[in-house]
């Protein structure tokens, strides 16, 4: 599970360089997110554009990552591919996160 992190002003962009966030790597993902987001940026954009597939364990791991960041910070999702988007829509979890079609959309929406 490879996560790459870069800072963009007050926003942090975390990119997932894996095709799947599934039961096999959910715990690994959660740990990697915990480390990546410990810097404390108020807004973290999770770039999922390289992720083709997510299952309920992966979805749970993303929710856990958001809860670990705390309610005063926000985890925003960008670049959802069709199956990933479907999982968020069906579970209505897209109402819990800010969801943007592309990373650029997410950056534009949060630009001061």
């Amino acid at each position, binding site marked *: 599970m490879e996560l790459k992190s870069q800072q963009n002003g007050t926003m942090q962009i975390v990119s997932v360089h894996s095709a*799947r966030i*599934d*039961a*096999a790597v959910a715990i690994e993902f959660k740990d990697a997110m915990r480390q990546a987001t410990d810097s404390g940026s108020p807004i973290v954009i999770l770039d999922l554009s390289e992720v083709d*597939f997510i*299952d*309920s*364990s992966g*979805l*749970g*791991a993303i*929710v*856990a990552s*958001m*809860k670990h960041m705390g*309610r005063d910070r926000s985890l925003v999702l960008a670049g959802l591919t*069709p*199956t990933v988007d*479907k*999982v968020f829509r*069906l*579970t*209505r*979890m897209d*109402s*819990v996160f800010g969801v943007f079609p592309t990373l650029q959309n997410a950056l534009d929406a949060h630009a001061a």
Partner: protein
Amino acid sequence: MQHNGAQIVQGQPKATDVHISITSGEYAVRDALSDLLEALRPLMLDVEEKGTIELVLAEAMNNIVEHAYPPGDQPGPISLTCTPEADGLRFLIKDTGRPMPNGVTPIGLPVDLNVDFNDLPEGGFGWFLIKDLAKDVVYHRVDEANQLTFRLSLAS
């Protein structure tokens, strides 16, 4: 044919049954999903259909890995049969692990999102996704084995 730990037995290259057997484990489930989609290539499924198949099968098999053969128990066999039919794909998944509690599948209600931030659900999505996307979901305990059958309709 041996491939990444999953066994595939195929007949004709067109719509025939697909059989895949694995030993329970999270990575074995990945292999089974990739072998299944490979075997279904002749059906020319679109990204939407493939996503639905992969999601429902992942949830059903992950449940078996997690609950039928829970950590502490010996891993065991999971077998998957996919039968193409006129209106979609019929699936049968068998395992010899622990039975479903009370002999029935969970109802699979949508998770409650009208809760405090710290109570947002991190699980409980699996059966909802299965019941939402699959039709005719039936579970039986037969001769010390779990049998789950369901149907996924295809657009074409």
